[in-house]
């Protein structure tokens, strides 16, 4: 089972690298969305430093959501999703493999781009490590919860708009605790509770989301 799972991961990674533009597009969106804020709220360093964690988190969340569409859509269009459903590998494990590949091609690049953006916005130095830790714990949850939304809208009219309506409300807890962790680190308060809550959310999402996404996929190809 492990080798079959890894084969799915490798296939998705190879597809992402050969098409190239997709994961780069999510990072470009992330960078551009964050860079817009100094123009929007003015270049005052104290305001920018204050809103930096929130801006980076919201932009990361939107970038993760925009990249969800290709998680299942191309497989649904060319029929390989049906083969994955028919394969002996449990469908929830297929979902985990595809989510892992999705995170490696979008979540990880976002994580690498985040420190540069934090410098641009002048985030205080105490916040850097926590921003990365919170993003590392939070972005896999975004991919997992997003997989449910991406599976539900397969074959729907106006799927992209619909997916934002389904997924963004469920992203709220990750955003709240992700920003709270960074804010706590900057102001010198305890960060452990926020990180534990993020980790708890990730554990719950890892247990429940693949199962729900598999149910949604099964009725999408039925």
């Amino acid at each position, binding site marked *: 089972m492990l080798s079959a799972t890894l084969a799915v991961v490798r296939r998705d990674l190879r597809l992402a690298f050969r098409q190239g533009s997709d994961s780069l597009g999510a990072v470009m969106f992330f960078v551009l969305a964050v860079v817009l804020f100094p123009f929007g709220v003015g270049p005052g360093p104290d305001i920018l430093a204050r809103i930096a964690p929130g801006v980076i988190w919201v932009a990361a969340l939107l970038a993760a959501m925009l990249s969800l569409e290709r998680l299942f859509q191309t497989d649904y269009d060319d029929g390989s999703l049906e083969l994955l459903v028919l394969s002996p590998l449990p469908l929830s494990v297929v979902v985990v493999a595809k989510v892992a590949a999705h995170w490696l091609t979008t979540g990880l690049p976002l994580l690498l781009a985040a420190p540069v953006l934090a410098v641009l916005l002048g985030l205080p130095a105490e916040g850097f490590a926590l921003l990365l830790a919170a993003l590392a714990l939070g972005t896999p949850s975004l991919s997992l919860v997003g997989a449910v939304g991406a599976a539900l809208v397969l074959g729907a009219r106006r799927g992209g708009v*619909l997916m934002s309506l389904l997924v963004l409300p469920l992203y709220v807890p990750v955003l709240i605790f992700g920003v709270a962790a960074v804010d706590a680190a900057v102001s010198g308060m305890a960060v452990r509770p926020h990180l534990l809550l993020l980790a708890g959310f990730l554990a719950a999402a890892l247990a429940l989301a693949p199962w729900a996404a598999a149910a949604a996929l099964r009725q999408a190809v039925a």
Partner: protein
Amino acid sequence: MTRFANPNRFLRWSGRLLPWLAAATILLFGVGLYLALIASPPDYQQGESVRIMYVHVPAAWMALFCYVAMAGAAAVGLIWRHPLADIVAKASAPIGAAFTLLALVTGALWGKPMWGTWWVWDARLTSVLVLFFLYLGYIALNSAFDDPGRGARASAILALVGLVNVPIIKFSVDWWYTLHQPASVIRAGGPAIHPSMLWPLLLMAAAFTCYYLWVLAVRVRGEIVAHKIRALRLRQAYG
């Protein structure tokens, strides 16, 4: 349960029940509103604004009740392919969304004189706002497919995923002790409200519940008839 799975039997029974539900709703609203708005005493701290509570609290209860009913019906529809359950879930969603909006709006109207602000990003308010978006997402997903059965199954999964929000709403006032006051009716040690205020509140809650059942029955009947018309049209088209 399965006895009422037959849509025709449901149409017959609900037709007989409908006038009674309507009468009960109007009667309970009449008595409840009189007691709540005129007969009950003003609060010693909140003054007359306490009367908003008689609409706000039942609306918030019903917002949660409708979601649980909708998710339960959606689960039944998903597991046993019970056609009536899908219709009940679909028909509950707009009613629940309306109750949620009513709770949010009346809460804002009460918050302005009491807290000095229409809205705060308190845990209870935020989680109820998420509930409202879940309702809207459910309604949008339900109608997004050409095949209504596919829409019903996809939105049923969403309703079950959104169920995690319900305990968060219920316990948000205990976990994050912020601005919204904790539960004062259903709590350990009995209600913390004086009977002169508790009775109008309970009557209003009963009125809201009857209203939900009444509108639900009307909507489900309309939905069944719409299904029949659709089936007839399809039969005509394929001759």
